[in-house]
């Protein structure tokens, strides 16, 4: 019961947060120097051409009026029309949401696998050569620029081994999984690098707790101690970071999307900012905000599963 009320309150709060997000993003993007009509028409356009386009696109209306049009459209589920592509923003953005979410989930699944395997392995062998190797390798992965890392993966797995395609997205679901593997791997490994360090130190810390000492004293096998007693408690901070990373993945994967030519939100956001395509920038920001809020809500809810002592006021 309390949990249901908690969720309801959080969702109500989300509405206020989104409202704030729209104000901030609208203000920011409109106060940037640069004129979308000038970008669209290029250098040959005369002042008259640009003024005409302003009229056509509704850019000559006052700021409050433009803001009101945006928000009222949003409430009705209409995100306006893209200035650069003259297509409804709904189409542009919502068709990419599943792609970005798919890539994010794929990357997080791989990250989770690597984190659990290598994080626990490193913690269990603390100080040993396995631990050292894991930490060094993942430090290298973390510090490698994602751009270069992506190209390295292409050179190895596409050109040399022919296991995966170079770039693109494919047309059927099996093809999507195949095409997205390398970008998800590039993202997942770099995210795992952070998570592994966190899980490792979290596990090591938890291993020092009294109840673990009790479990050892009772003679439980090591793997049972790790999996049943330590892991769930150690995961709390890792899961928090996991949730934050997912939020970043929704629209922050521009570099990987560019290298692997994945038609996701990151790339669309970047090109829209560059061409000052206000409706698209605003809409992607709102969509991303919704997803970040929902994911963080799920993370908060997961705490009570990991630690039954957590309750919701």
């Amino acid at each position: 019961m309390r949990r249901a009320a908690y969720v309801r309150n959080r969702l109500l709060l989300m509405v206020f947060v989104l409202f704030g997000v729209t104000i901030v993003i609208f203000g920011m993007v409109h106060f940037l120097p640069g004129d979308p009509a000038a970008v669209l028409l290029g250098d040959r356009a005369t002042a008259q051409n640009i003024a005409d386009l302003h009229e056509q696109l509704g850019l000559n209306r006052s700021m409050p009026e433009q803001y009101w049009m945006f928000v009222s459209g949003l409430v009705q589920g209409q995100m306006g029309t893209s200035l650069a592509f003259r297509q409804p923003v709904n189409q542009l953005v919502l068709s990419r949401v599943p792609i970005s979410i798919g890539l994010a989930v794929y990357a997080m699944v791989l990250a989770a696998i690597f984190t659990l395997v290598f994080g626990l392995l490193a913690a269990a062998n603390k100080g040993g050569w396995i631990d050292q190797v894991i930490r060094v390798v993942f430090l290298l992965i973390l510090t490698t620029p994602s751009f270069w890392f992506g190209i390295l993966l292409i050179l190895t797995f596409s050109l040399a081994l022919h296991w995966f395609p170079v770039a693109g997205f494919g047309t059927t679901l099996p093809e999507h999984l195949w095409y997205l593997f390398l970008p998800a791997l590039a993202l997942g490994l770099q995210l795992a690098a952070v998570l592994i360090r966190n899980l490792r130190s979290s596990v090591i810390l938890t291993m020092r707790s009294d109840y673990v000492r009790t479990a050892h004293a009772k003679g439980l096998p090591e793997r049972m101690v790790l999996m049943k007693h330590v892991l769930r408690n150690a995961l709390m901070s890792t899961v928090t970071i996991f949730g934050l990373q997912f939020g970043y993945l929704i629209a922050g994967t521009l570099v990987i999307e560019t290298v692997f030519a994945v038609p996701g939100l990151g790339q669309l956001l970047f090109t829209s900012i560059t061409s000052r395509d206000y409706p698209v920038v605003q809409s992607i920001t709102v969509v991303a905000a919704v997803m970040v809020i929902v994911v963080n809500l799920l993370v908060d809810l997961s705490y009570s599963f990991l630690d039954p002592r957590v309750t919701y006021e």
Partner: protein
Amino acid sequence: MLTGRRGWFGLFSQVLGAMLLVSACGPNAPTTAPPAATTAPAAGVAATTAPAAAAATTAPATAASNTAPVVLKMARNAEPGIFVPWLIDDNTALFTMGNVYDGLVRVTKDGANLEPALATKWDTSPDGLTWTFTLRPGVKFSDGTPLTSNDVKVSLDLARGGTRTVWKDNYKAIKEIQTPDPSTVKILLNQPHAPLLSELAMFPAWVMQADMAKATEAPGYDDANNWASKGTGAYYTTSWKKGDPVILKRNPNYWKNTPAVDEVDIEYIPDDNTRVLKLQGGEDDVVDFVPFSQLDSLNQQPGVHAMNFPIQQTTFVILNVTKPPLDDKNVRQALNYATDKDAIIKSVFFGQAQVMNAPIPMGTYVDKNSPGYPYNLDKAKSLMAASSVPSGFTLPMVVANNNQDRINTAIILKDEWSKIGVNVDVQQVDSATARAAYHGEGNFNSTPSAWTNDMNDPTEIVNYAMRGGEGSGSFAYWTRYNNPELSAKITAADLEQDPAKREADYVAIQRTYLDDAPLVFIANLGATAAWRDNVKGFTIDGLSYYRFEDVTLNK
């Protein structure tokens, strides 16, 4: 479950196995041959590269034989915008439209001349005010509708006077267009205008079906409809939405009868390196905008070719001649002499460019003997000493951050110009901000830029870059240069009918402009592309358009 160390490795090998399983379950990994290509191009189609004869064949091109369609896959660096020729300035859409629409005439592959396209012959009245074009007989749009002079008139009228056109200025010499019969177009001019043919070869004058063209003017018109194109060109499109590859399908009614490739799929791969990797991996047959740094290494690899096609493109630095001390000609000339162009060509363009000596691109009536500004540090220093700022000054330079070549050029210029006491303050901003900077009055001093000719005649660049004051929409390529004497000479050159005199006029104009140096002239650039061995006939013409009508794809 997991027991000790073996258990962990067991889990990890299961993960590795899953990876291999995913890779095996995916469609077959591409090898070196493109997947969809089949046998040699259909025997029925003559893969001729000869220019179209004046008497065109009326029979539609023989369909490909019963094997699977021949599909050429291309990857390029951008996505197109609106698919109507006179509404845009966007190269990607234009390059695509160049394969879908035609004009009355078109540029030859080397960019040097014009050849018949939809018109097979034309003549001019003695006073130069009336041009009569005879349309090629039997031309049909891709849906089978015959081309008539009305289609030409409607398209051209919209290009020169429609509500949405951005190319009005290029066609202001035209007074009226008449259609005495379905295969004749009469263009009446306000005054004699030698560049008319070049303007008709330019993209805003491409011909759409009259109904489709008129529809674009309707208020609230959805431009997505333009993708169901019906042009007279070698290919047509049916639809497109952002994120999808652009699919060009062979036009069975094409008047030139050549396409051997049934379909061209053009996908958007934004990263330069990834595009090249896709070519090397066999996933694409052709790619454009190959980085200059990779041309030589690609040519050394078996199976691929890369080339730098000469096109009418220049790169330079724009100087705001109203901002002291750039208003002092000595300073502008000093900056030119202090620029070691060979060093820039070597570091930024990997040797794949030529020094820019004439102030306009290498095309019609370029000043072939132009002295340019050979690198001469002593001369630069003495000019600075004689200028209004003998001890040097700080020069802000706005650079758009989406073009690495321009950023690198700015960095090198900072070093080179420091030797004459000029301290370049490089300000990297995003491209829209950079554009706002040089469009506006504000603090704009200088910015690196580039220009590609859109037409095969100097009138475009000369009017855009050298004409200042009234009637100048671009403020002389944003330099704010205004030389009324020169502007008068430009007007006279545009009216001149005798080709030899016209050439002399334009050469004189270029000399004056070169001497006034509102730009720092750097290099003539080409356009790069690469393709696999089994692709033949891919070229980029002098105006940087690529055409697929003569391409063949062998297995």
